[in-house]
């Protein structure tokens, strides 16, 4: 009789992956140990001899990495192939090759679609809710806490089962169909419009240069001229009349350039923002030409 993995074991394996995929992440095998842990119940069910179990376990603690939530498709595929191997189909090497081949595409899809687009979008919607409902700002985090973990669990489980049922070829066919690219492009456009709006709404930066001159100021109350100062050149007002919020936009593009083109680390960019904040604050306090004096 052909050996199959029971649905209970599938769920068990998935749960161990979903909850504990990140426990022992390190540079040597990345998520390899977590992958091995999630494969252990499957291996226990499929193989009888100690030698077979040892060989199978050793296959699955080697280097493995993916975006773990969307990447659960790899676990499904690996279980399907392990099941075939237990029934005498395929080779141990083909399982290893399939896993290695899946690292790149599943990481790319998971990182760009899920982690870098869907999560920020969902967070943006929730934080907007918090901001607009000033009497109940808890609504945003509560909604996110309810929707994100549950939605991700269901999605990740569906992807896991798809991998198990469709197998390597089925999944590769879907990835090559181009449907994913179209979804990706649509979600990217949504993301870009929202990020544009967030940049204009939330990034604030002023150059604080406001050159003043001592002069006679007309006082309407007493109908007399008294000594005072008037602004002769306010750089921020001038720039904003050309293109509103151009300084925050320029700062954002500077961050983009440093991160994307110059490979600066976020913590280094944060340091630079701190330095810039100190500089513009200092300008603001210079008597005569600062906006605060």
């Amino acid at each position: 009789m052909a050996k199959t993995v029971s649905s209970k074991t599938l769920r068990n394996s998935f749960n161990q992956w979903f909850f504990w995929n990140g426990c022992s992440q390190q540079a040597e095998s990345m998520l390899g140990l977590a992958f091995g842990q999630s494969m252990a119940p499957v291996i226990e069910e499929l193989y009888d001899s100690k030698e077979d179990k040892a060989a199978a376990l050793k296959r699955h603690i080697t280097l493995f990495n993916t975006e773990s939530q969307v990447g659960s498709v790899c676990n499904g595929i690996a279980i399907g192939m392990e099941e075939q191997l237990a029934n005498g189909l395929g080779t141990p090497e083909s399982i290893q090759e399939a896993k290695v081949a899946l690292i790149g595409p599943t990481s790319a899809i998971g990182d760009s679609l899920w982690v870098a687009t869907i999560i920020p979008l969902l967070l943006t919607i929730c934080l907007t809710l918090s901001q607009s409902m000033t009497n109940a700002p808890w609504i945003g985090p509560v909604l996110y806490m309810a929707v994100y973990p549950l939605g991700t669990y269901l999605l990740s489980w569906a992807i896991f089962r798809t991998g198990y049922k469709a197998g390597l070829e089925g999944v590769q066919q879907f990835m090559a169909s181009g449907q994913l690219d179209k979804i990706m492009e649509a979600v990217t456009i949504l993301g870009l419009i929202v990020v544009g709006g967030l940049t204009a709404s939330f990034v604030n930066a002023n150059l604080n240069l406001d050159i003043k001159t001592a002069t006679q100021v007309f006082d309407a109350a007493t109908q007399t001229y008294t000594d005072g100062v008037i602004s002769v050149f306010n750089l921020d007002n001038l720039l904003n009349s050309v293109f509103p919020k151009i300084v925050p936009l320029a700062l954002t593009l500077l961050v983009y350039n440093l991160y994307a083109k110059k490979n600066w680390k976020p913590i280094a960019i944060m340091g630079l923002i701190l330095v810039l904040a100190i500089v513009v604050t200092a300008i603001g306090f210079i008597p005569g030409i600062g906006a605060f004096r």
Partner: protein
Amino acid sequence: MSVLQMILIALFVYLGAIGSIVGNSIGWYCLGRPLVASFVVGLIMGDVQTAMLVGVPLQIAYLANVTPGGAVAWDLSFATYIGTATALALKGTVDSTPALIGLAFTGAGLGGVVGGTMWGIHYSLDVFLNRWAERLADQGETRKMWMPNLLGGQAIGFLTRFVPAFAVLAAISAAGTSSGLNIPGWFITGISTFGSMMAALGMGIILSFLVKKGVHWAIFLAGFVLVTYFGLNTMAIAIVGAIVAFIVYAIGNRQEAL
């Protein structure tokens, strides 16, 4: 902050870090996000309203703090929990929302440095777990395979998150209760400016994930001017964006059908 509050917040710093016992979808991607973290700190310290005032800007600044390609910038949960706790513990010393946000970013920066160091230590120590797993695999011990990953990983994870987080919180709490603490006005102005500029960090890095061709810059600018020239709020922009995205998707499908 009371000792119990510090213990609870330090516990959440651990739960919201990468690879905690509740899993990354509940931990790192939910409890670790600034929006959720500030809410939790608000609950623990009994002031959700103030906590959310700093939570929203923190979330925007760290919106891009995700893990593309496994590259972790720093332990986000250290930054967000400690940032919000700093603002709440020291809120009596300042009198404006920008200043409060500035305090949160100052605390978040401090927490981020500690967190980055701790992540490095965690990542290095975990390598030894490979030897344990290899030994178990050699013996075909399927029933013990959870131990190196879960038991070993959690022990290292808990020690490198809970203990330093508690220490930092204790220091901040001590600063908050010391009677002589008088923050000068220029410093408040400086950190307020820093806080309002930090949103550019999140936006700039998110753009590097999203922009793939020239036309994407035009779409980004469209969202920008919808605020500056048309005065739309963020929710309105999200709805406009969803409509445009759907139309683009529909056109893409139609071109293929023709």
